[in-house]
């Protein structure tokens, strides 16, 4: 057997290359040193308290005092963003427990992300939790209490009754005119009954019109629950029970994604800018467009702080400089 050192070396090199590649693909966190492992239930139902456990280690050594967050993909007002469900700090064993209440009927892709104190990027741990279908939703989809006989028909009957008497009174006036015309001492040649007929006709016409308006009013209160006639896009989920917490657009946690444009948009909603300047800063009845006329950050900041031409002034206690920059970035880049 001849010794072929070159082939052996080549084999060894290929083996090492394959091993390293496999390692790099399967454990990306390894590259940054910190590795996240997560233990979470596979199935949950809406309303349940869900416990997610995360273990952080660096080269097999538990990482203590690391801040992590549990996020999920949510979309609102046409914008998709990662929303923080819970945050926690790891203990000396590298374990952190995060508890959240399941509100949405679909979590999409969930992540456990590393927030600090280290600054090196750490690959987030990606996983999914299936939410049971047909589970209860945490927003009210039954509108109101239904009390027998206390409904639209009653209102229409009431209106019809009142208008019946108004029309009746007008018809008596027609009869007054008729009695005058039939008398031998009629004062005008053709009589003036027509004015009372006109009055009565107007009363009857308005009466019928009013009832029709109410009868054909688009949907009854009950139909509001029918998704075909009423769009109940679940923008905000609200608990049935006290303290009715949920998250809405006015929630700073949606503005912590790290992407200044996404954050800026969330803050743009949070501070109510959209109410006047439109959903995309395009301008509306009250506020002017911000899309092309935004100018420098300095002038933008001045306007927000001073509130020109009827705009409310927002001081830095309300909107921090940092948040203002994010809003500016959103308007400049994406608006």
């Amino acid at each position, binding site marked *: 057997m001849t010794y072929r050192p070159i082939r052996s070396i080549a084999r060894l090199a290929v083996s090492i290359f394959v091993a390293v590649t496999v390692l790099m693909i399967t454990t990306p966190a390894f590259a940054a040193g910190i590795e996240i492992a997560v233990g979470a239930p596979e199935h949950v139902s809406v309303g349940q308290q869900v416990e997610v456990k995360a273990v952080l280690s660096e080269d097999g050594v538990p990482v203590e005092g690391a801040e992590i967050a549990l996020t999920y993909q949510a979309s609102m007002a046409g914008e998709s963003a990662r929303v923080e469900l819970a945050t926690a700090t790891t203990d000396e064993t590298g374990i952190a427990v995060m508890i959240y209440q399941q509100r949405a009927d679909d979590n999409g892709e969930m992540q456990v992300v590393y927030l600090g104190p280290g600054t090196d990027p750490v690959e987030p741990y990606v996983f999914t939790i299936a939410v049971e279908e047909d589970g209860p939703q945490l927003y009210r989809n039954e509108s109101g209490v239904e009390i027998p006989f206390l409904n639209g028909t009653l209102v229409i009957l009431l209106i019809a009754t009142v208008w019946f008497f108004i029309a009746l009174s007008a018809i008596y006036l027609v009869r007054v*005119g008729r*009695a005058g015309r039939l008398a031998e001492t009629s*004062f005008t040649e053709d009589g*003036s009954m027509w004015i009372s007929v006109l*009055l009565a006709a107007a009363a009857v016409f308005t009466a019928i019109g009013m009832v029709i308006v109410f009868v054909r009013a*688009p949907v009854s209160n009950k139909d509001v629950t029918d998704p075909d006639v009423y769009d109940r896009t679940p923008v905000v989920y609200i608990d049935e029970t006290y303290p009715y917490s949920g998250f809405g657009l006015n929630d700073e946690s949606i503005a912590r994604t790290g992407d200044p444009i996404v954050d800026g948009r969330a803050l743009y909603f949070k501070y109510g800018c959209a109410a006047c300047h439109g959903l995309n800063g395009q301008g509306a009845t009250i506020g002017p467009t911000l899309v092309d006329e935004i100018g420098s950050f300095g002038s933008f900041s001045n306007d927000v702080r001073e509130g020109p031409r009827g705009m*409310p002034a927002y001081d830095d206690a309300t909107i921090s400089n940092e948040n203002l920059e994010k809003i500016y970035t959103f308007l400049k880049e994406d608006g």
Partner: protein
Amino acid sequence: MDTLTNWRERLISKTTRPTLVTTYRYWLWLGFLIVIVGNGVYQYSKQWRTGLYVTGMRDRISWGLYISAFVFFIGISHAGTLISAILRASKAGWKAPVTRIAEFITAVALLVGAAFVLIDMGRPDRIFNVFLFGRWQSPIMWDVMAITTYLTAAIIYLYAPMVPDLAMYRDRLATKVGPVRNFIYETLALDWNGSPTQFKLLGKAITIMMLIIIPIAVSVHTVVSWIFAMTLREGWNTSIFGVLFVAGAIFSGIATLILVMAVLRRIYHWEEYLAPKHFLYLGYLLAAFGAFMIYANINEYLTSGFKLEEAGEFAFRQLFLEDFAFMFWFYIIGGLLGPIVLMLIPKTRTIAGVVVAAILVDIAMFLERYFIVVTGLRVPVMPYEPASYAPTFVEWSIFAAGLAFFVLLITVAIKIFPMFAVWEMVEEHEVSLAREQAEEELAREPGTADLGASTRPPSTTRHVAEGGAS
């Protein structure tokens, strides 16, 4: 019955006087009103072209002077209902000279009030969407409904008792007025000849309207208050709003009626018919409603002020101590306590005293409408600085035009329509004459006079219009 005939003839000549005699001062006054209305129309044309930007209203305080004026005018319109319908239904012996003026105020104030809703709209061309797409679950719809009903009912209720008087005008003024007014009288008099059949039918029409218009009027201002009370706003979130608004409406309605009566009495020398007793009775009503308003206000503010939730503190501070304190305390002291004090002191229990009370009440009630609308919207619902609102020149102009238009419509109506329900006043006078006669007889020969017969229903007085026809 010679005295009765004389009395009637004098009444008729006094009533028709405004229709027949027009002085230069009338034209000056009319011109003045038209200038104010014209300025309002011009300012509105600006608003039509530029949008609500020309007003002081913005996103957070989106209701201001216009909606205050709307509530105020709808409130004034309750004068006709209370004075006319309630007094008629309760057969109060002094109502007749007051009813017609009150009914005119109702119809005219309703027209002006409804106009302010249109003026407040940024897109008035969309008004028909209310009828096409309105939903009966919306308080705005209830309002449209209630005001349409009330306006129709008020016009019929104004018109029906006027038919005999219009017939009298048709017969007596035919040669004295021009063709336009002749046409109006001939048309509106419905061939009235005063026959028992016609009186019976007219009586039915009046009775139906008199009874149905009371609940309608109450519902109207309750629904107006619900526009506020059905909203989740600190300061509007109270169940007493319906009661408070209805009482306030009648309160300001009586005050306006007193003012119109006082002015007409002065100009046309109607002292004999609009006697001090009419003003005093209305003044007592004013004081009574003032007391009720005080009660309702204590009820409203103490229940929410005792609990004082977070937003309530802001609402109370601005109303009792800060921005709106002047208006609020003027309303409480001047507008509610004022009339009571004026009626309690014998020296001010005069026509002048009642008129002063009425002026105070009208100003106070307008301020109340204003601060209810504006303070309710001013309480921040998001982390903002509280918004501010001040009416612009456009708004003041249109508001002034609304007031002027209200007066203008009455000014024009005086020249065409009888401001007194002559036939009802003659009926009333006959009853009191008969009573006096019976009392005299009773005093002369105790025990022989038949009181029951002398206070019989005044069926014989129906000759008023017939007499005019001959």
